[in-house]
């Protein structure tokens, strides 16, 4: 039995906005795999909830008129993994969210919840950062879009304006971001399921048509800092470079310059730094191979 004050169910985005404005203290709940856990722990005990889980319009993956990949915020992890658009254009995202918790959690958990939670360890977050996703928020003043990097303010806090009745309605990946792009995600956990990442690393590359050059390389981490982060120093090393083992080494070693993992009882900073370097190398190698390249 959960200690909740009230539960309001929204049938549409408009209703959700209206409920949000009427109950500014209420917590939005989608699949509940984070919110109910926190409520059970007593952290959100006695709160009001607004459920948006019934808004089917927010489910599904499409290509919109601007050729963005549009992922409705309530799309479940298992849906994303099996979606043909994701598999064709951004398979790494499907692979990343397929590493969340367990099959049950992947069926109930949503990508909107995963990002709105604002935690650095979210399995979708590093890949969405590495693919420069755009977050779509809808409120009383209409739609607001912002880069995912700006959406994350600090650990546990994202840019959603409750006072404007905002909810997250979609995550977009622009064509320029996904076209001819191949990526790989490595989740480092202490076991092979039921894990929150000790570190997550997502790398993607776009090779030149003759596969001889890395035109663009992007890398992002979860748990390498308080929020998911890109690693510009390493990206600069790889951009325009030839795909070689020497490059992979240099790329991996460069991540140390930018990442800032914390020391905690869950893992030491030194350990996280060590695996960050190794994961960057392995994810870059795999991305180059997926893109049809060869490592010289």
């Amino acid at each position, binding site marked *: *039995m*959960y*200690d909740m004050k009230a539960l309001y169910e929204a049938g549409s985005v408009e209703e959700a906005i209206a409920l949000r404005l009427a109950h500014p203290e209420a917590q939005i709940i989608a699949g509940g795999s984070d919110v109910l856990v926190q409520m059970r722990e*007593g952290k959100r*005990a*006695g709160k009001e909830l607004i459920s948006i889980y019934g808004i089917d319009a927010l489910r599904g993956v499409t290509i919109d008129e601007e050729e963005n990949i549009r992922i409705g915020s309530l799309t479940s992890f298992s849906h994303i993994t099996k979606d043909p658009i994701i598999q064709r254009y951004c398979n790494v995202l499907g692979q990343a969210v397929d590493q969340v918790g367990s099959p049950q959690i992947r069926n109930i958990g949503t990508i909107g919840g995963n990002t709105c939670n604002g935690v650095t360890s979210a399995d979708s977050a590093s890949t969405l950062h590495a693919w420069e996703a755009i977050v779509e928020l809808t409120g009383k003043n209409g739609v607001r879009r912002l880069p995912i990097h700006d959406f994350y303010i600090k650990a546990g806090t994202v840019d959603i304006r409750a006072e404007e009745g905002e909810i997250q309605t979609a995550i977009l990946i622009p064509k320029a971001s996904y076209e001819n792009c191949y990526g790989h995600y490595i989740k*480092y956990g*202490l*076991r*092979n*399921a*039921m*894990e*929150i990442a*000790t570190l997550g690393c997502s790398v993607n590359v776009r090779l030149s048509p003759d596969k001889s050059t890395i035109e663009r390389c992007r890398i992002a981490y979860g748990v390498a800092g308080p929020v998911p982060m890109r690693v510009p120093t390493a990206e600069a090393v790889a951009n325009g470079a030839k795909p070689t083992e020497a490059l992979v080494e240099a790329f991996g*070693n460069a991540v*140390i310059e930018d990442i800032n993992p914390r020391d905690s*009882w*869950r*893992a*030491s900073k*030194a*350990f996280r*730094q*060590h*695996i960050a*370097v*190794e*994961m960057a190398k392995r994810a870059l190698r795999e991305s180059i191979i997926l893109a049809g390249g060869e490592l010289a």
Partner: protein
Amino acid sequence: MSNVGKSEIRVDAFDKATGRTKYYEDRMPADALYVRIKHADIAHGMVKAVDKAAAEAIPGVVKVLTCFDVPDIPFPTAGHPWSMDPGHQDVADRHLLNRHVRYWGDDVAVVIAENEVAANQGVRALKVEYDVLPFVLDAQKAMEEGAPQLHERFPGNVLKHTDMKKGDYQKAIREPGLIKVEGWYDTPTVQHCHIENFGCFAYENGGRLTVVSSTQIPHIIRRVVGQALGRPWGDIQVIKPYIGGGFGNKQDALYEPLCAWCCTQVGGRCVRLDCAREETFVSNRVRHAIRFHIVTWLRKNGDIAARKVECFSNQGAYASHGHSIVAKAMGSFPQHYPCDNMECDAWTVFTNRPAAGAMRGYGMPQASFADEANIDDCAAALGMDPYEFRQKNVMPQGFHDAFSGNTNYYDSFRQCMEKGAAYIDYERKKAEFAKDTGPIRRGIGLATFWYNTAVYPISLETSSNRMLLNLDGTVNYQCGETEIGQGADTAYAQMVAEAVGLKSYRDVHVISCQDTDVTPTGLGAYASRQTYVAGFAIRQTADILRKKILDYACEVTRQAVGNMDIVDGNIIRKGDGSVLMSLRELAMTAQYNPVHSEHITAESTYTIRNNAYSFGCTFAEVEVDIPMCKVTLKNIVNVHDCGSLINPALAAAQVHGGMSMAIGYGLSEQLLFDEKTGKPLNNNLLDYKLSTVMDHPHLEAQFAENPEPTSPFGTKALGEPPACSGAPAIRNAIFNATGVAIDHNPINPHVLFAEFTKAGLINDPWRSKED
């Protein structure tokens, strides 16, 4: 032998698979009040006051009770048979709620409420004031002078110290040319993690107290509830329904006494006390963390000349099973690798950690980790193959232990090792893996263990049975040895069918639910004893039942008792094998005979004064990714000599479960505590890394079936043994793969990172600049 030795389907399979099985919560009265416990959030101190006002004001809160309200009756909790000798009785160091807080999570107060939400709110609203005392988490630090003291009766925090001596160690080590192999081996605090958390409910009924509990030991719980409440034991009825696992945690009085007492404080209304997973980790029982110091002196030919073993067992805050665990651990050494000169010491030490109690293996997984790690270190020091070193030194055939009366009748260790080596292709793979020099290296390791089947002669071993012939010729069977998921009921059904002479184990109805008002007194499920111990009572009780049946058959058939037998549910004439009548006909005739009506039933108690060695080994094959600090277990096999198998499929399942536990023990599981506060850090199933099915390779279970001569059915222990040798086998495989000998488990990526860095296998250039 027709009903035993067969992989019959579990008697409870259908109900469990379809969700019909009734656990304690399924029997819960709808109007039960909720009890929630206020756990201390300091590691050590005295409760000065509890402010109940805010909690009592919450709608739905019925009553708040604190450590100042409970009777001053200390009681023991261990699920041991009661001893008539006060010197052997368990330590009575618990109160229902404690003013002297001895660990983070100790029980300070309870809130009883109409519903769960109000009970939780009530607990959050309680304000407890403490006089905070310094605390100690480490067993050896707790033994130091000036360490915080936990119990007045145990100055220096030592619950007990025992030793064992053989030959003359000090003299033996002076032999010239000996090689000394010394190590400190540390094992962690882990928890049982049975699927069903502990819970119970209690109500008054006709002036008596009924407690329904998720327990392994209903009859012992009746005794402890009586002791804790100061009530005659006959006042207490304990009912044990199906339970979702126990692994020893439920071989202890957990919260049954507190729940029963709460019931008496609300006019006898039904109260329920359900532990959350977080509480199960901290405020139930854990496995003892034991630190071993082993010094082995070797001759160049591989003989063990002398050995010294010191064991420091972290008891946590309360005595529970106490010294029994480390005593068993220590006792394994002189028999596992017998040598002429040994000195062993064991200390059990109170610390400000959760109380350690029984857990599958009862000290042996700890001892096995240390012993088998040291044995591999010995082999390495000699340049000998670890397999060969064990073949040379492990307990030989014919070895006899005078204290337990156990004999190694067959050459079980060597048989098991040979089977395991053949399955895993030891020689060939070892040679192949030795060539690995890159970042990914493979290795193979092994470990052996022995285990006692029951608790004789340390404690009482007894089993009582009742058999009732039903009117359809089937037999109802009751005993106090409980089904806790291991499949005991199915084994009993097969053994009873065999002993009575029924056609099928389906003709036996095992009354699974123990009720102390009606079930013959038994000690419960622990010590891997059920099949062995119940076997004696089954054979004896079946003989009584058979005699009654044949005596009655003699009246009906006029055949001499000695000329008849019961085979496949029929009474036959032995001479020509002709069927005289079926058991159904006999039962109906006996029941409804207007001249001599008889309800045919048998009941008896057997006191067992034997024990039996159970043996086995594990071979593990690993792949170590050095840069990623990761171990992948590629292949693992356990081989057991647990005597004859009653049900091979269930035996294999038992082994699989134990192997899974050993994998977690070896690679991932550990309950962590904050050094600054004593607070448990990871008492949930996310942060406590119980291994998942995704972390397991195929689990191979094999057997060397040597019938145990002392057992009526040729059986001996298999419940706990599968958990004993897996972790050291994995440790030794990592040693073989990398050359890095790691002397503490679990060997998780953090440990590998530190050890590989120390060994120079990992070298992060940026670290020197930062650290």
